[in-house]
């Protein structure tokens, strides 16, 4: 197994596992979240590592990874942007926002699919994902750049937004 997990991350994971004393299988999701946060996506090695950690079979972890579009099996760009696609935001222009962001970042949006819901720019700097409600409907349209929430983003400002992260 070639995944090298830093000691502090492993410590955090070990601690998190103690929250699930009954079934180690329940700890799969939190462990994957921590690993994805650190590695930015979940490689096959990450899947095997998680399985070994929890005493599960790799495929029992893989099926969870593939079930949730929120888990990425490929590396995103350096800056990952999540644009809300749900009703309030959609009505307030999030589809346009997505298009503009993609154009400004040089991303081919046609490569986004249901199970591969994001696409990466050619230079690898940006990736954009069209996601369900980000729980800030009142300030639609919204997007998350990494962990930073941007509210009332009007579609024309897409290039400016990117520029702030370049």
């Amino acid at each position, binding site marked *: 197994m070639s995944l090298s997990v830093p000691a502090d991350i492993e410590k955090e994971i070990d601690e998190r596992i103690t929250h699930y004393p009954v079934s180690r299988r329940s700890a799969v999701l939190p462990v994957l979240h921590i690993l994805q946060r650190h590695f930015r996506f979940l490689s*096959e090695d990450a*899947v095997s590592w998680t399985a070994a950690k929890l005493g599960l*079979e*790799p*495929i*029992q972890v*893989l*099926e969870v990874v*593939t*079930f949730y579009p929120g888990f990425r099996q490929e590396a995103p760009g350096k800056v990952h942007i999540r644009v809300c696609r749900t009703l309030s935001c959609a009505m307030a222009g999030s589809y346009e926002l997505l298009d503009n962001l993609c154009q400004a970042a040089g991303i081919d949006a046609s490569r986004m699919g*249901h*199970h591969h819901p994001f696409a990466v720019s050619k230079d690898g700097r940006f990736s954009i994902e069209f996601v369900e409600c980000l729980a800030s409907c009142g300030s639609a349209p919204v997007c998350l750049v990494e962990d930073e929430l941007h509210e009332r983003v009007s579609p024309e400002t897409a290039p400016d937004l990117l520029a702030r992260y370049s």
Partner: protein
Amino acid sequence: MVTLNPTTHAYLDGQLLAFQPGDTILKFVDRHKGRGFVPTLCDAPQLDPYGACRVCSVEVALKEDGPRRVVASCHTPLSAGMHVHTQTQKVQKLRRNIVELVLTDHPLDCLTCEVNGNCELQTVAAKVGIRKVRYPEGKNHLNRQKDLSHPYMTSDLSKCINCSRCVRACDEVQGQFVLSMHGRGFDARIIKGFDTSFEDSECVSCGACSQACPTSAISDIFQSKAIVATEKTRTICTYCGVGCNLDVATKNNEVLSIQAPLDAEVNFAHTCLKGRYAFRFYNHPDRLRKPLIRTNGHFEEVTWEQAYAHIVENLTRIRAEYGPDSIAGISSARCTNEENYLMQKFIRAVIGTNNIDCCARVCHSPTAFGMQQSFGTGAATNSVEDLQHTQCILVIGANPTEGHPVTGAKIKQRAMKGVPLIVIDPREIEIVKYAKHHLQLRPGTNVALLNMFAYFILEGGMVDRDFVGSRCENWSEFEAGLRSLDLDQIEEVTGVPREKVRAAATEYAESPASMSFHGLGVTEHSMGAKTVMLIANLAMMTGNIGRPGVGVNPLRGQNNVQGAADMGCQPHQGAGYMRVNDPAMQRLYQDFYGMPVSGEIGLKIPEMFEAARNGRLKALWLMGEDVVQTDPNSEAVKESMNALDFLVVQEIFMTETAKFANVILPAASFLEKSGTFTNAERRVQRVNAAVPPLEGTKPDGQIICEIMQHMGYPQADYTADGVLEEISRVVPFFKGATWEGLGDNGKQWPVKEGNVGTPIMHLDSFKRGLGKFHFFAWQESQEVLEHGLEFPYILTTGRLLEHYNCGTMTRRTGNADIVVEDVVVINPADAAKKGVTGGDWVRLFSARGEVRLRSRISEEVKPGVIYTTFHFPEHLVNNITSDVHDSDTLCPEYKVVAIDFERVGSGDEPAGLPIREKGRAHTLPV
């Protein structure tokens, strides 16, 4: 009028009926109306309820006129007094619509589909009344690629209905976790491993998924679910002591495919790849089809009559000249009880000697001997079914997932459900992954380790004094022995820290029910029988005898190794284990056979070989044994074969041993014969011929009957039920067994009057009265003492899942495409010392000879220990194995060989050895 018992009855479509505790609604309906009354798609009897398809929907209400709810019956528990409505318009409409939607994404090419007529989707669609699909064609998955990568398993996922039955079969039945549902919603699909092919996945081709799949989405190259066969025959697998039941589909006297019966108590819809798929050896062109007599150094085809006449002439001559003890027979644990019985009868009553033995000598003779010393009976005390009741599993010197795959899968399943598992084995075998304790001892130190194990039970005050006091004897000697142990020395020789042993011993002793399994890693040692007695000690001192979920359970290797010994293929005991040198028993056999029999104990196999070499043994009859390839120290065995005056071999293929024969008699395989096999849990099961013997061949039993007749003995012609009847009159524990009464699932012996079997033995007392403790101090193997300095590594041998013994059969099947050679496993530290990298050719040499094998580097063995299999006799691993034997039973010590090794070349070089290429024809170098 039936009165409502509120705890046991519910209403089924208005009718008040009884249910059983734990019933789901579907089980309740199935029991009263038959399977299929309520349609199902994702449910299967061999799997846990799942509730994915909702085709089994029914309406339920708590009161007669109360509000109704639609629920999936397969996974909804039934409660008392519930009203279940299975045929309302509402549920019928619902079912129809579900199936209709499934069909929108299913190729409608039933007429050309391999399972046409035996497809559950087809059946259910017809049942719910679908005539046409109303929905327009939409997005679908009809263009998915087939996976034909594997020698056996196939998939065509355009036929998949996402019921997850295959996934659950792989997880719940086999425990391999190869399959899974990838993604979700419309994109959900079945994957293998990390989304690869069957060939590249970890699949062990057990076929459980194929059998569970309701359509042809997962299948196999034999198209096992197709209904082209005209006949189905239930029989027993020939490959191991688990004794799986098989349903063999045939047409025009040819075997088409094999499935596992759903009602088989032993293997409930499960097999391993040997039982289900490795059958094509039976009509292989290499099969012998004519009797052969050696004349002037080559074999000539003769008629059966000529062969018999030649045999009679020679055996009569040799007996007259040198006496009956100059003749010997070796029977086969592959053959049926009836054939083994006849073979020993032929040798004892017709020839007049006790020189009869069988291949149990090279595997489990120490088990039979050891358990007889401790308990009085040399057989498993409990049943595999007891795994459901046990609370601690101890596996010693056995690799069940490879050697006894179906039992291995059950052990694994229990361990995954949290039953603590203790593994005592020099190697990190597959089940170690699921084990709570692994005591990785140095090969050859079982006795030392088990002594320490027992010591900690004693020291921890965990001895069951009541059991020991009331049911056992010789405790004080054993206790004194344990107290005299030198734990430091044991730690040093075994290489296992004492705290680990203490923890495992505590687990075993404190669990309310502990069950042990052992295999050849216990018996094939110089102290094999003694180790077995120590395992019996552990069970006795903790009171783990005579209840469900406990006991001492040998995992016996060959399909009928239990039966061969039961039937008397041993030099010291006749049919039913009566001692031949006891005058009363001699008289009993004499009266029964109507012939004088010898009261002298006969020769064991290694003694026969020796007697042949020094001229005392003149003639040998071998039934289905390739001793040259499978017995240790091949060169000496060959010398013995050469020294014989007359050798008769009954075989299905021209084996290395058969080449030495004077007469070769072409026998029939298990698929062509009837009789009974006794599995490792003493279960006597019926073997039924699925096809007639290949032209020119005869079943072994018939051959023996005919030779007895030709020698002038009035033996009746061979019939399975006739010989079984004869056996039941002499073998006490077969007393109540009849062919009819054995039924589909067989009976566990002792079979009492009226075909009553015995799942658990020694309930209130032991066969020998009191169970006897024995103490033995550990002794270093002679092999290590003599050669250890010069050859510092210990070679230990084992088996693979895919092959059977020297591969005579499995290597003539697709299994040869899965595993192509024996390799030697070396610890990275040792490999580094000798400059070996993975795949390199390595020369192993011992005091007796050398072999060259390719290497695999792995930490599954500890430094100092080398491991290999010996399924590929052309590698001649037995050239280096030793002549050391178990001191009590002469079982050879295959598990401890002192060797050294060196690198002889990189993996690309052929190193003068044939490398079997993948996909090469399944023909063996002869």
